[in-house]
C-alpha cells in the first residue's frame, strides 16, 4: 500500500489530505483518482507537482515512475514568486 498526500486543490476535490491505496506506479495512482473522484480531479492531479518520497517525478520517470510498497506520493500546487 502506498501512502498518498493530497494538498491544495486536490485536498478540496478529494475531501481528504491523505489515504493509503494499492498502486505500483504514478499512472496507477492517477487511475485510482479518476475512478474514485472523477476525471476532473484526475486532470487537476496531472497539473500538479507530483512527488515520490519527496522527490519530483520529473527527476524520475514522470508518470511512469514506479512505486514501492512504502512509497509516499505527494500532490502539490505549482507556485511562483522569488
Amino acid at each position: 500500500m502506498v501512502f498518498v498526500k493530497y494538498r491544495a486543490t486536490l485536498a478540496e476535490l478529494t475531501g481528504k489530505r491523505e489515504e493509503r491505496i494499492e498502486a505500483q506506479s504514478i499512472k496507477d495512482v492517477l487511475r485510482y483518482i479518476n475512478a474514485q473522484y472523477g476525471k476532473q480531479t484526475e486532470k487537476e492531479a496531472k497539473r500538479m507537482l507530483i512527488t515520490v518520497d519527496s522527490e519530483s517525478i520529473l527527476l524520475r520517470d514522470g508518470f511512469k515512475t514506479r512505486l514501492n510498497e512504502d512509497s509516499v506520493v505527494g500532490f502539490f500546487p505549482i507556485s511562483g514568486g522569488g
Partner: protein
Amino acid sequence: MMQNPLYVHLDLGTGIVRQIPISDEYFKKYIGGKTLAARLLLDMTRPGIDSLDPESMIIINTGPLNGTGAPSSSRFNITFKNVLSGGIASSNCGGQFGVMLRRAGYEGLILTGKAQNPSVVQVIDGEVTLVDAGELWGLDMEETQEKLPHAYGKLVIGPAGENLVRFASAGSGERMAGRCGCGAVLGSKNVKAIVAYGTKRPEVHDPVKFNKFVRKWVKFIKNHPMTGEALPRYGSAGLVSKANATHALPTRNFKYGQFENADKVSGEMLTETKLTRNGNCISCPIRCERRVMVRGKEVKGPEYETMGFFGPNIDSDDLDAILELNYVCDTLGMDTISAASTIAFAMELKENGIADFGVEFGKTDNLAEVLHKIAFREGECAELANGSKWLSEKYGGKEYAIHAKGLELASYEPRRSVGMGLGYATANRGGCHLNGGYLALLESVGVLSMDAQTPKGKAEFTVFMQDALEAVSSAGFCLFSAQTFVTAIFFKLGPAHWFTRFVGRAATRVGGAVRLMLRSTSLLRFNSFYLLPHAEAIRLATGFKMYTGQFIDLGERAFNLERMYNLREGLTSADDTLPSRLTKDPQDKNRPDTVVSLDAMLPRYYKTRGWDEQGRPTAKRLNQLKIEV
C-alpha cells in the same frame, strides 16, 4: 511625451537643496529606477568612498509607471554603495513611499552628507526640509511609522540601521527594501526617516490608450494561473514544496537540498493554518502578501526566502518561530535573508568547534533574542551584524560561508539549479536570485523544467533573464508581474506532461538562438502583450519608442552600468564566484554533476555579454549600448 523626471538633491551636512532635472537623453536612455540611479551614482560619486562615509550617496527613486495605476507598479528603488560587497546595490520596495514621492513632485531623492543630529527628511509638495528626529531615534520600524502622520509616504529605519548593521533594511509600511544594507547607509547619515506627501498626480502620455491597456493587462494577470491563482493562494512561500522536491531547498546552511519536514514549513501549511487574509501593494492585482497573526496582531507574513532560511536552513520545522522571527527582523529593520543566513553560518561554525555565538542548528527558542543582540550589536552576537563574509574572514569556514561578493545567497540551492548558480556569481549586487536572472524558475521550482544540471544554454538564458528583469524593475514594476511570460498552456498541461517536459529539455539547446536574439535587438520592433506587456506600458506612459528590442537594451544597459560601477570600485572577475561547498562539493556524492560548474559557464557568459575574458565590458559593446564611459 511624459514630462522629464525631476530629482532633488539634499546635502544633509549643509542643508542645501538643489533640483536636478533629468535630461531628455538620460530619461530616454535610462528610463528610471535602478538604471537611471546606476548612471547617476557613476556620474556623481568619486571612486573608493566607503558606503558608510558621509560623502557616500543614496538615491531613492521611482520609475515612470509608479503611481499611474498600471498593475504591480508601485515599486520604488534605492541605489547606493553596497555595504556588504563594496559594489553597487539596488534594493526595491513595494510600500507607498515611491508613489507619494512622485505626488510630492519628485521622481527621485538624492542624499549625501551626514545630518548633525538624528533627523527626518520631509518632502512635502515640492519642499524639502530636514527636521529633528527627536524621540523617534531608538524606536523600531513599526513604532517609528506610527508616530509619523498617517497620510505620509514613509521610509524608515529601525535599531539595526541606527547601529549600522551591515544588512539593515529600510521599510515603507510593512514592505522592506531588504538587501545590501540601505538601512545602515541611512543610519550612517543620521536619517531615521524620510516622509513624502503631495497631491500631484503622475501624468501619462496617452491616457486613453494607457487606461485601456491597463484594464486588459489586469484581466490577463488575474486570469493567468501563476499570478491569478498560485501567487494569491500560496504567496511566494508556495515554493518551499517545489524546491524541496527538486533538492533545491537549502538545508543546514546549504549542506543539503532537502528537508525531512518540509511539509511543516510549506506555503500550503502557511495558507491552511496561519493565513488570515491576503494583502497587496498599491495597484497590484496579484495580492500575494500573506497576513498572519503574531503576538496577537495581524502582520505581514514571511516570503519564501524567510520560510527557507528561518526553517530548513537552520534545521527547524517550527512554523510559529518563522512567523515570529520574520516579524522581529521587520521591526528591527534587518534583511531576513542575510540575518538568517549569517546565523546558519554561525551555527555551522559552532558545530565545527570554531566559534560559539550561542546559536545551534535546530534551536529557535533564543533566536528572537539573538536578533535583538545583532540589531543593537550587543554581547557575543555583535559580530554577526557584519555578515557571513566578514565572519569567515575572521574565523575561517570560507568554503561554507554562503555568499557571493559578500551578499548572502537567496533560498535556492544552486547545485541543483546551476544556471541560478551562474546568476548568483554574476549578479552585480552579489548573491541575489533576482539580479541573478532567477533561472531557478526555469530549472527547478517552476512549471517548466530545463535540465538543472547541464551548463548548456545557461549563460545565454541567464543574460536574457538578467536583462529582462533589470528592465522590468527600472520602470517601477514588481518582478512578479513578469512571471506571466511562462504561458498559461504549460500550467494547464502540468509539469509532467510530455509537451511541457519537451519544451523544458529543448530550452537548453537553444542558447545560440537566444544569443542571436540578444545581438539583434534592433530587429525586435514589436511588443508582445503575452510575453512582456511592460514594454508596451512604458511606451504608452512615456511616449517613447519602446519595443521589445529597446526594452532588452534598457536591461542590458542597466546591467553594464552596474558592472562598470563594480569594476570602478575594485571588484573583478575573481569576485564572480561562489563558496567551494557549491562549486567543488557535490550535493549528491554519487552524482559529480551536482555542483555549480562555473568554469564551464563563465567564459560563455562573458562572451554572450560582449565582455572581455576578464569580465570587463568592451568599448565596442558599451558603444553599441550608447553608454558613455
